[in-house]
């Protein structure tokens, strides 16, 4: 299990390749990656703040839950903080399991918990100033299915 919180950019392809090499016996690998998206136009930058110490702890707990619940061969999370531009990768999760249904479910579970339970906060900077992104009710609701 590999959990990383970092300011530096990462290479999603290189990460998927090394995760796949480590988990080759598993048969099924799912990855999710999230990129900075300019929803309304005019987004200049996104700044991600986090809670050093708690972030790593929360991500490790979430990933351990996923590994146990779906008998994963392996799980991976990398999440950036600091200033990011439109189109840049924010984060990535990957899961490996013998069967595809488990790899998919575990990746979705990881994402749902990471969204609402890992201490990251996004601030968006546009021509009209900077605003903290509001949490979505849908993201909180998504936790209820697990």
């Amino acid at each position, binding site marked *: 299990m590999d959990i990383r919180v970092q300011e530096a950019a990462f290479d999603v392809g290189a990460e998927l390749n090394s995760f796949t090499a480590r988990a080759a016996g598993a048969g099924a690998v799912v990855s999710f990656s999230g990129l900075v998206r300019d929803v309304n136009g005019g987004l200049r930058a996104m700044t*991600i703040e986090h*809670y050093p110490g708690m972030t790593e702890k929360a991500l490790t707990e979430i990933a351990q839950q996923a590994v146990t619940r779906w008998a994963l061969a392996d799980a991976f999370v990398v999440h950036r903080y600091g200033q990011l531009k439109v189109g840049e990768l924010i984060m990535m999760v990957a899961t490996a399991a013998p069967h595809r249904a488990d790899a998919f479910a575990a990746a979705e579970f990881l994402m749902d918990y990471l*969204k*609402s*339970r890992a201490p*990251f906060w996004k601030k968006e900077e546009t021509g009209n100033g900077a605003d903290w992104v509001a949490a979505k009710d849908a993201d909180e609701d998504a936790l209820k299915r697990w």
Partner: protein
Amino acid sequence: MIDVVYFAWVRERIGVPREQVETKAATVRDLIAELRGREERYDLAFSDTSALRVAVDQTLADFDAPLEGAREIAFFPPMTGG
């Protein structure tokens, strides 16, 4: 003495990322009441607790969580990672 840390707009409203607080508050809720009594910036930051989350020693907690033995209390808005 307890460390109190703030993130995102809570940090911006209070104006500092971290401070040490001398308190005899029994719960998170009591600590919030104490802080609100101090200065307007705290009163403003804590005016709507439904918009706030709290962590006690880096674990998400309720506002009723006891402070006994706790070293670090964090206040922040709902998280928006991913």
